[in-house]
């Protein structure tokens, strides 16, 4: 079947005739239901407009509720009314055309020149708004009609729907133009002049901007709901339409009985108000129409607008079936390409089997099964859906034949899409293979946390089951986890070891640790290996090599301290990694080797052996690391931050010294002896110098603490290997928290009139303590004043995060909107699909996919050279 496509949608303005033609009923009764609860004829719930009660039938098409799509009705307005959405255009037209003859206030040749310019820009797909503005400026200024010579008066537009004419330029006396006057003037504008105002004469006549007929949407778009009390509650649109009909009828009655002009005018105004708010209830200048409860009504514009409106809420993003959501938790035992699905979820979700002669028996099997995975529904070729229950299983299984669809429960090996919001990049939705597991959470391998940006502090994730074979094939080939190990953002791995994986491998591979045969076997138990050379003892590096594919690579590890001259293999820190032919000869495996984002080894395996081998390596690596860390034991406690007395002493001294230096700077400043830095005031200089001094003091304190903590300290191991935390975190725990800041400055705000932060200090105190320097460590605890300053600094961080997420979210939305229609064509160019504009002649100037690139470079020349020539560096 070739899928049908809609080729185009044209937008036009409805004419009154069109509105009447598409209407099935003229409505004039403000009542909706009669006393028996039946819809009133000629009322807003007229059954000719469709039905929402299950018992009734549509009088137009005969369809029942759910079958009839609904039909439009109309209201004949007793007096013309301005359409708010077009009021601005009406204003332009009134001031731009002659009040007598209706022609544009411009000579024909000039008009034609402008129209040609508009046509030109239109053809180029560019905005011609500026041309329209120019025409408006010229025509508005015209004092006399160039066609009939009539004097022109200034038109005043008062939002939202009133028009006035200044009849005396001297006294500024104004006369109101009724919608009727406006409509008469608009009628006079000839079609040939319309393009100059940006109007397409084939799609619109300006007088249609003044409504004489109002279409009434079918009841199906404004269904009433029955409250728990049994009361009927009408839709906001119905409420508004009732108001319109009521006023419309009252206007008619009053006019027929010859009521005074004033009363008629008031009613006309009221009708205008109701119709205006029916279109848009957020128009500035008039109060919004409210529900009895005081809540503003949600009328047409409000239904379309905004995040939850029709466009963004129901059309661009839709609710779906075949999906599940629950809390996630980690499971290091499953592969990165799997997802653990709770039994309960697996029973609820289903996958269709399209029955053919080839899989008939396979499908029957599910129908006959009594425990999961079993069939839950069958769909006959005529579209009828039958629920499979134990009593009809056999019967259906007998009847089953090609062309039927069997919906079976989810089972191991099914492909599903797994997603965590916010979906900021394509790795936020990846395809996993199902593992049905007990308990109630989705399980995922911790190595896939980075692309989802997931943790397990209560995060929830969504799961979707693709329902067609095409979708399943696409999911397996394009969306599988292993296809996304490399990020298209920077061409490096985004899936890799985290936290314990890194610590585990660090503990395993650092130095020349020896492990007994038993230990080694225990480490490798979870890994699928076919052969291990028999030995009594294995080094950690040997054990790691067992899971390593045959790659050769040399690089500096994360723990490298950045020696001035790298001693490479001879690094006494074991920080230079040498892997030859799949053997780890030298160096420690840490974040730089296998971490997400950095993982050089993962990167290399991916390039050399592809996705499947990489997946296996990451699986093995994480399993090995977890077993190592479990077996060796790794823990951290509050006493890990204990430092000896002499260290505390040294830290105290360092900080006191810095505080003293700050005092000296302040003294110099007070005495006017402080030399300002170039381009800075003395005050700024003082602040910067103090910040510098105190910053240096904290760094020194950290160094001292670091010296005493040593490389065996668990926290230090985590920090240097890149598993978690940083040396700064450690410094703050063990030595000194340091300067707190708000907006990059020391804390200054507080008691403005005495120039101090809190009342514990003397006025004008500029010292370290008084302006947010926290000399305590987290371990030793903060003084109340320090605690207060710390909270002030911490608050800024929170505010910052909150503001940032909303701002970057909007930036992302704008960028997606601007760039979504770009595509690489078969000729290698990048084009915008709607306009056909060539944006790039060759994607990225070299045509290379950033994901496949070698960290941005088109290809890894050095490796090819090395492979061909077989030379070492």
């Amino acid at each position, binding site marked *: 079947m070739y*899928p049908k496509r809609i080729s185009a949608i*044209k937008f036009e303005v409805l004419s009154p005739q069109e509105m009447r033609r598409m209407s099935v009923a003229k409505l004039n009764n403000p009542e909706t239901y009669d006393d028996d609860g039946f819809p009133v004829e000629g009322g807003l719930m007229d059954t000719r407009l469709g039905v929402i009660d299950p018992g009734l039938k549509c009088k137009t098409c005969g369809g029942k509720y759910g079958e009839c799509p609904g039909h439009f009705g109309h209201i004949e307005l007793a007096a013309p009314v301005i359409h708010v959405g077009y009021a601005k255009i009406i204003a332009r037209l009134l001031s731009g055309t002659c009040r007598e003859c209706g022609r544009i206030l411009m000579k024909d040749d000039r008009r034609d020149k402008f129209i040609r310019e508009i046509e030109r820009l239109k053809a180029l797909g560019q905005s011609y708004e500026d041309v329209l503005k120019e025409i408006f400026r010229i025509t508005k200024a015209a004092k006399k009609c160039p066609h009939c010579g009539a004097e022109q008066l200034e038109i005043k537009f008062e939002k939202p729907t009133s028009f006035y004419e200044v009849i005396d330029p001297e006294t500024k006396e104004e006369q109101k133009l009724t919608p009727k006057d406006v409509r008469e003037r608009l009628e006079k504008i000839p079609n040939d002049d319309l393009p100059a105002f940006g109007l397409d004469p084939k799609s619109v006549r300006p007088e249609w901007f003044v409504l004489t007929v109002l279409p009434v949407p079918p009841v199906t778009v404004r269904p009433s709901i029955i409250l728990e009390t049994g009361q009927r509650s009408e839709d906001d649109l119905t409420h508004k339409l009732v108001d319109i009909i009521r006023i419309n009828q009252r206007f008619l009655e009053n006019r027929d009985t010859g009521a005074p002009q004033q009363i008629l005018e008031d009613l006309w105004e009221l009708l205008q108000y109701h119709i205006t708010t029916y279109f848009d209830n957020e128009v500035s200048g008039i109060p919004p129409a409210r529900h009895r409860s005081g809540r503003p009504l949600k009328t047409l514009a409000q239904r*379309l607008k905004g995040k939850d409106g029709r466009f963004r809420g129901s059309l661009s993003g839709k609710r779906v079936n075949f999906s599940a959501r629950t809390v996630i938790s980690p499971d290091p035992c499953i592969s990165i390409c799997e997802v653990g699905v709770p039994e309960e979820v697996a029973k609820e979700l289903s996958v269709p089997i399209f029955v053919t002669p080839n899989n008939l028996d396979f499908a029957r099997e599910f129908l006959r099964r009594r425990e999961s995975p079993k069939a839950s529904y069958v769909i006959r070729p005529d579209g009828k859906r039958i629920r499979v229950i134990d009593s009809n299983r056999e019967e259906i299984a007998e009847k089953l034949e090609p062309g039927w669809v069997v919906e079976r429960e989810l089972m191991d090996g099914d492909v599903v899409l797994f997603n965590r919001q916010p979906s900021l990049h394509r790795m936020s939705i990846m395809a996993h293979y199902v593992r049905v597991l007990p308990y109630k959470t989705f399980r995922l391998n911790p190595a896939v946390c980075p692309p989802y940006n997931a943790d397990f502090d209560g995060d929830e994730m969504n799961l979707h089951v693709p329902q067609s074979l095409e979708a399943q094939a696409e999911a397996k080939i394009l969306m599988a986890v292993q296809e996304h190990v490399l990020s298209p953002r920077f061409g490096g791995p985004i899936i890799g070891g985290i936290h314990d994986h890194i610590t585990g491998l660090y503990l395993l591979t650092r130095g020349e640790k020896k492990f007994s045969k038993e230990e080694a076997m225990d480490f490798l138990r979870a890994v699928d290996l076919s052969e291990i050379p028999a030995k009594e003892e294995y080094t950690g590096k040997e054990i790691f090599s067992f899971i390593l594919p045959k790659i050769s690579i040399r690089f500096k590890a994360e723990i490298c301290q950045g020696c001035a001259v790298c001693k490479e293999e001879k690094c006494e820190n074991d920080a230079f990694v040498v892997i030859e032919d799949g053997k780890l000869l030298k160096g420690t495996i840490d974040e730089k080797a296998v971490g997400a984002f950095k993982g050089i080894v993962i990167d290399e395996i991916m390039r050399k052996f592809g996705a499947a081998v990489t997946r296996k390596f990451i699986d093995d690596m994480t399993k090995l690391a977890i077993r190592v860390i479990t077996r060796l034991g790794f823990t951290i406690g509050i006493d890990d931050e204990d430092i000896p007395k002499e260290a505390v002493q040294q830290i105290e001294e360092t900080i006191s010294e810095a505080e003293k230096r700050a005092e000296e700077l302040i003294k110099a400043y007070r005495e006017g002896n402080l030399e300002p830095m170039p381009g800075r005031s003395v005050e700024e200089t003082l602040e910067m110098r103090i910040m510098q001094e105190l910053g240096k003091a904290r760094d020194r304190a950290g160094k001292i603490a670091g010296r005493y903590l040593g490389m065996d300290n668990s926290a230090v191991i985590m920090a240097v290997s890149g598993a978690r935390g940083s040396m700064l975190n450690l410094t703050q725990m063990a030595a000194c928290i340091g300067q707190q800041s708000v907006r990059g400055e020391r804390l200054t705000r507080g008691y403005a009139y005495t120039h101090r932060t809190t009342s514990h200090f003397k006025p004008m105190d500029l010292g370290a303590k008084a302006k947010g320097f926290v000399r305590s460590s987290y371990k030793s605890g903060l003084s109340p004043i320090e605690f207060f300053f710390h909270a002030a600094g911490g608050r800024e961080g929170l505010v910052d995060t909150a503001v940032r997420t909303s701002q970057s979210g909007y930036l992302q939305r704008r960028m997606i909107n601007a760039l979504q229609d770009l595509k690489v064509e078969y000729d290698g160019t990048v084009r915008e699909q709607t306009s056909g504009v060539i944006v790039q002649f060759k994607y990225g100037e070299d045509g290379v996919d950033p994901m496949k690139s070698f960290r941005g470079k088109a290809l890894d020349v050095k490796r090819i050279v090395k492979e061909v020539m077989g030379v070492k560096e």
Partner: protein
Amino acid sequence: MSYDAILKEYPLPPSVKQEIKEELERLKPKKNVAKKIVDLCYQAYLSNLIEPGEAVGIVAAQSIGEPGTQMTMRTFHYAGVAELNVTLGLPRLIEILDVRKNPSTPMMTIRLLPEYAKDRDKAREVANRIEATHLKDVAEIEVDLREMSITIKPDREAMNKKDLTIDELREKIEKSIKKGAELIEEKGIFVVKVKKDSYKVLMDTFEELKELVVMGIKEIKRVIIRKEGEEYVLYTEGSSMKKVMKVKGVDFTRTITNDIYEIYEVLGIEAARTAIINEAISTLEEQGLEVDVRHIMLVADVMTADGELRQIGRHGVAGEKQSILARAAFEMTVNNLLDAAVRGEVDYLKGITENIIIGQPIKLGTGDVELIARLGVRR
């Protein structure tokens, strides 16, 4: 032996060719080995090419947008130059993509002609010509309410420092006061007498004179001289490319500003594209975020594709989409629909959002393939 002949046969990008050439010249392999290397490189290049149908725009938007959440918001005190405040992080990135006409911290990097670049005094001389000097910086200004006059006492020392003569100063003041007042000079002191007997006029004139730029460029608030390698480089707070380029001693071929719109106006669209790329890269790099240049290039190309600098967003690329439905789904839903009706616009449903809205497959990736298997025909 030259390897150019071998390389010439392969349509590789210049940067790759250069790298291969360097490697070959370093290792000097035999011709057949070199040929093999280049051939393998070409194979690798071909396999690294982007695939047709790839949604490069979306990938670019995601690659730049995703790290946005990790960026900081604050304005920092430095970016190489400690003395200048520069907007960084997310606000700066937004500023670049919005093509803001007045960036919050305009800044120029001015390099000098060889004869000025080596010498600190010469560089200072250029800096003086650029940095805005206000009258209040080189003179004491006072109002005499009784006489209805303003006295200006030039500060000789400050003027010497700036290389400003009394004659030049007088000329500037005369030009500023025009007809409303007269200038009298007594013993090196200027007196400005207001003609109209009005305190308002007097005080207005006073305020104007205080802020009168007697030397330099109005927009450039501060100039900082730094030595970089062998030469002195000027960094400025404030930016005015047009005026700075004309200053004697400035090497305008190596002078840039961080105001992208200004670059567009002065140097044109291609320069603007380069500026967007450079500014975006340096903003992301400063935050320690790795983003492939190709993504940034694509964004810059979209912004400059039709010869005009267009922002990402409502008043630019996203707002000028051909599709009515796509525009309506982005921002200003109701207005877009009303305007489309008046203009009789047609949505040809070629883009992504439109097709999502009406529930059709999109023309990207696998959705773009027109090959269809006919089912039910089996051999």
